[in-house]
């Protein structure tokens, strides 16, 4: 169990409780998901939703521009293969550059959430 992704919200009761991803977070989550091995787009979307205990709502189609953008930047590479169900799908895998990027993005995200948390806690104390 990954402690970083494991600190999610409890399982939402319905679709309305799901959180829309902030800008840039989708690429970070996709990189993190691919750090475990090559996956196709649908599997990435499912893994993110599953690991966030269904709290994060990904509009599945939006994943593909992000994947193509990251591939263009050299963070991931793709190859057509077969899924477990025997269908053809394009599998994405992390490149060494992508691993470096994931590490940097992860640190930046942690600093940002910590800072936002501090501000929010301060506002709460004032209230």
């Amino acid at each position, binding site marked *: 169990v990954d402690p970083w992704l494991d600190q999610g919200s409890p399982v939402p009761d319905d679709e309305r409780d799901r959180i829309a991803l902030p800008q840039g977070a989708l690429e970070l989550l996709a990189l993190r998901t691919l750090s475990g091995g090559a996956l*196709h*787009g649908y599997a990435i979307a499912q893994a993110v939703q599953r690991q966030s205990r269904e709290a994060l709502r990904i509009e599945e*189609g939006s994943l*593909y*521009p992000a994947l*193509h953008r990251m591939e263009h930047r050299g963070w991931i590479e793709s190859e057509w293969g077969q899924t477990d169900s025997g269908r*053809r*799908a*394009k599998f994405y895998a992390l490149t060494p550059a992508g691993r470096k990027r994931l590490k940097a993005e992860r640190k930046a995200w942690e600093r940002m959430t910590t800072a936002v948390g501090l501000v929010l806690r301060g506002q709460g104390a004032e209230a």
Partner: protein
Amino acid sequence: MAWRDLAARFETGALQRAVERDVEAEIEAHLAEAAAALEAEGLAPDAARARARERFGDLDQIRAECLRIRMGGILAMNKLLAGALIVVTLALLATITGSYWLYTRARMAQDMAMAARMQAMEEAAERARESEAKSQPQEIVVEIGDSLELVETYGRVRLPTPAVVQSDGKALIPEAGWVDVAGLSREQVEQRLRERLAPFYEELNLFVVVHKPTLAHECIKAPITTFTSQLFGAF
């Protein structure tokens, strides 16, 4: 990247169609996977497909966005490749042109050095010829109009006045008579006179001095007809 793929990249139209097919296949694969998963949860095939489409989002917009990203990257790569190709071509042309220029300059310098060497050799040879010519006494040839003076060791043969070589090439020498001397060298004239005077003198030791005429005597050299024609030709 295969060379075939690289070549195909230059064909933008074909490339765009290939990218569109790739994007379409990827989206279709996603929808098929999603629909199959929903079917497995109990949805009917049509409903599962519709739900999968719904979850996917705006299909046309996503397709266009994917195409834009892919083509943008490839076109940028094409521009980079085209730029690199131009640079390489220019560098190659510059190398060829520069090499040819250097080659022609080297050839020119080589030719100039060779010409200078040849000229130096010719000048040296000319100087050597001149030096040789100066070191050797020039042979005196008796000509019409020359005056011959005879010197004999014991003074036995003496001319009252130098014998002038007439226009027929002969000079009148006492005891020897008219002797044909024109065109002979001084030594040959001496030899001839020794032969002609041998019956009259013993152990004749004779030397000939040749006096070249001044301009006033030049006319004697020419035959009389030539002389008169030259003299009166202007009239």
